[in-house]
């Protein structure tokens, strides 16, 4: 276990450095933040720009800047935003809960919906409920997330005026963004649950459970589901990364004050410190979710536990 954790931490550090290095490098290819900052300030000379760069530390070579950033990370200081000078930690501290809440709400919706539907499809394999669920899942898979988001807004906010079209105020505002992400996740998850369930249902111990005289729901939810959980947990864990990516777009549409919006604005403004900070936090989240997944394996399956 100690060895396992040690390798896990090493791996996490490597991923963190690689991701931040690539992102820091790539964003510097997009252009000069000094010009962005100077916009609207009337006539600007090259000397003015140079002064801005110097103030922001942009006149130094890339590697020096990057090492500065790493040093900051180690001491817990992620720097200050180019725009307004708020500290990056504070910006992230404000946005992170909103994103996490949305991500978990989406994941929860997809798990709660996809497990019963997937099981239903598996047990009625080839019959109409299965066909129905598979068609719906295909339809769900075909929606682009931004389109789905806009359609929901058109329908529920503009036509029926039931739900707030944007922002994060009250539980009602969660419904549409979480549903958008949830529907798209559910579409893939249903198929996954169905396939793993079909495989598990072929096992001998399922027939044994039936031969005991257990009810159908006890066989499915007690005996089969827990045996499906390893592939499901793996996939739900992996999905979390994709989910965070998708959330950037959805947050934008619903004007959700989360990391996605923060990252989007940072890219648009070439606000390097904010972007680097957001990416670091997102990477850390994905790494820790993966670690949690590994721990969860042992929890659901005694065979994974080390004696």
């Amino acid at each position, binding site marked *: *276990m*100690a*060895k396992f954790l040690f390798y896990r931490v090493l791996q996490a550090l490597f991923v963190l450095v690689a991701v931040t290095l690539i992102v820091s490098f790539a964003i510097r290819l997009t252009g000069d933040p000094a010009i962005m900052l100077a916009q609207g300030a009337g006539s600007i000379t090259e000397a003015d720009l140079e002064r801005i760069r110097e103030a922001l530390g942009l006149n130094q070579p890339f590697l020096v800047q990057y090492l500065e950033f790493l040093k900051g990370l180690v001491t817990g200081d992620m720097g200050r935003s180019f725009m307004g000078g708020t500290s990056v930690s504070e910006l992230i501290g404000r946005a992170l809960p909103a994103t996490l809440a949305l991500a978990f709400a989406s994941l929860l919706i997809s798990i709660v919906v996809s497990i019963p539907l997937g099981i239903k499809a598996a047990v009625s394999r080839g019959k109409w409920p299965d066909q129905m669920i598979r068609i719906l899942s295909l339809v769900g898979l075909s929606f682009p997330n931004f389109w789905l988001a806009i359609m929901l807004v058109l329908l529920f906010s503009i036509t029926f005026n039931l739900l707030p079209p944007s922002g994060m105020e009250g539980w009602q505002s969660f419904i549409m963004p979480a549903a958008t992400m949830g529907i798209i996740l559910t579409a893939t998850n249903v198929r996954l649950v169905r396939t793993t369930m079909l495989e598990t249902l072929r*096992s*001998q*111990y399922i*027939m*044994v*459970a*039936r*031969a*005991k*005289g*257990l*009810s*159908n729901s006890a066989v499915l939810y007690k*005996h089969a589901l*827990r*045996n499906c959980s390893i592939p499901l947990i793996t996939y739900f864990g992996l999905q979390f990364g994709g989910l965070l990516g998708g959330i950037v777009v959805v947050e934008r549409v619903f004007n959700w004050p989360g990391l996605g919006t923060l990252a989007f604005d940072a890219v648009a403004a070439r606000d390097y410190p904010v972007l680097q900070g957001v990416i670091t936090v997102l990477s850390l989240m994905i790494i820790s979710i993966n670690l949690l997944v590994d721990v969860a394996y042992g929890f*659901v*399956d*005694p*065979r994974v536990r080390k*004696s």
Partner: protein
Amino acid sequence: MSLQPPFPLLSVNSLDIAFGSNRVVKDLSFDLYPGQTLAIVGESGSGKSMTSLAIMGLVHYLNATIAGGNILFRRSTDSAPVDLTQLTDRQMRKIRGKDISMIFQEPMTSLNPVYTVGDQITEVLLLHGDYTRATARDEALRLLRLVRLADVESLLKRYPHQLSGGMRQRVMIAMALACKPKVLVADEPTTALDVTIQAQILTIIRDLQKELGMAVIFITHDMGVVAEIADHVVVMREGEKVEEAAVEPLFEQPQKAYTRALLAAVPTLGSMKGQNLPCSEPLVIFDGADVVTRGEATVQDTVRVQEQPIVRVDNLVTRFDINKGFWGGVSHRVHAVENVSFDIYPGETLALVGESGSGKSTIGRTIQQLQESTSGEIVFSGKPVSQMSRSEKMTLRQQVQYIFQDPFASLDPRKTVGFSIAEPIHTHQLLNGRQNVSQRVNELLERVGLKPEHAKRYPHEFSGGQRQRICIARALASKPKLIIADEALSALDVSIQAQIIHLMMQLQREEGLAYLFISHDMAVVEKMSHRVAVLHLGQIVEMGPRQLVFDTPQHAYTKKLLSAVPVADPKHQRQHLLLDGDIPSPIRKVGDEPIVNPLNEVQPGHYVSHSEASAPL
């Protein structure tokens, strides 16, 4: 008023089971009486397992339907019989697991891996019986003791993967007996187990049946097991009942040709008594409606001892590290092979026999260089493998070929049979030109009793026996001197098994092949081999000419193995020799080296390990 026996507890009447329009059980009828053991025997595809699932009301989970007939079950002697095929699932659930329960074939996969043994047993008790959690736990303990398991308290908290196959099957039996069923359906409950464990399980089932007065339906393909356990036998073939009789008349005077062919195909332990060489017997084939005998008895005098041995294994040791500790160190090792030495001469069949974990397969893999040895030497055609160049090792791989147990898994399903057979020819560049290769493939197919046009087909188009023939043809393709057959007959029906034995012996006579025949089946080993080495925990405990080892076994373990083999004769009184305990594990702590017992020559060529003098195993 209660009725007196004989009065059937369960009667199956004109039962038809179908997958779509394909009927797998046709017009089957039989009765089961209280306290009786009814064996249903048949080869694969006979419909015996479907029949057992129909009694449990489970066929619809396999998408099969009961197309006709009924199954009448009498819950008690004074109640009217109910037709199990007409019950709703809810009604059937009250009978399933309570009045009629079932044990399945694969103990390794019959228990749910994520729940403890205790959870799985108490589940049935809580479902059908009047128990609280605490009383159910006590009852579970009693049941585990009933199936002769030790240390039951801790067993309750253990998970299936921590138990051996034999222990799992006992847990299954405990689970099946939990609600004191009137009928126990046992579907090949011992097929996947080692013979000594099989003998234990059969004894437990028989004893408990007497104790609890239940009726047993015992599904099997093994005539030896039938003779051992059954009172009454139903023989099935392709979904139909061929013959039904009490066990003794069935074995003494089988009425139907198929039963006679089935009995003739069963290799019987002791059939070679007094003969020093194996003998290829005429094949008894069930052809259409008649029994045909093909070929004649030929003594297998093929060993060329005057030549240099093909393979000499010298003090071979193979160990695997397992169980990495907290800081990654190795805490335990599997001592798969410990100081094993033997040689194989051209034209000879050397059998390696032993139970699971005895290291027999590891030896085979090490010879073929599929597995690295820890120490010791393998000498191939006079040259030690450790001194071989790359091209010499290639020659070794060409001349030593392998046939595996599972003919379904050892052929690439996406390649034609012809491609698979031709592959070794290309790999070792034995022939050039497409014409030559395809001609050779055709020859090989004919050699193993198939047709040249089969070359274009895919593995799934063949039966298990045909696939094993294809595997043999593939092994022959590289013109080997030695074929390692690792449980190559174990997955086959007896009639097919007899044919493959016949083929292998014929090939030995005609091609001068040597076989390293790895098997747990003592009867087949007796039929085929010139010499036998008995393995126990990675060591050879007894080795010698087959006749000496089988007729005058010296080592306690050899005697135990032989006594555990079921004999296909209901009158045979089994001598139960030391049939307690589980198969010991070859896993040891690092530093805890096993004692290697030297072999002593007791008769010319007959070696016995010294451990015989010490305690029985």
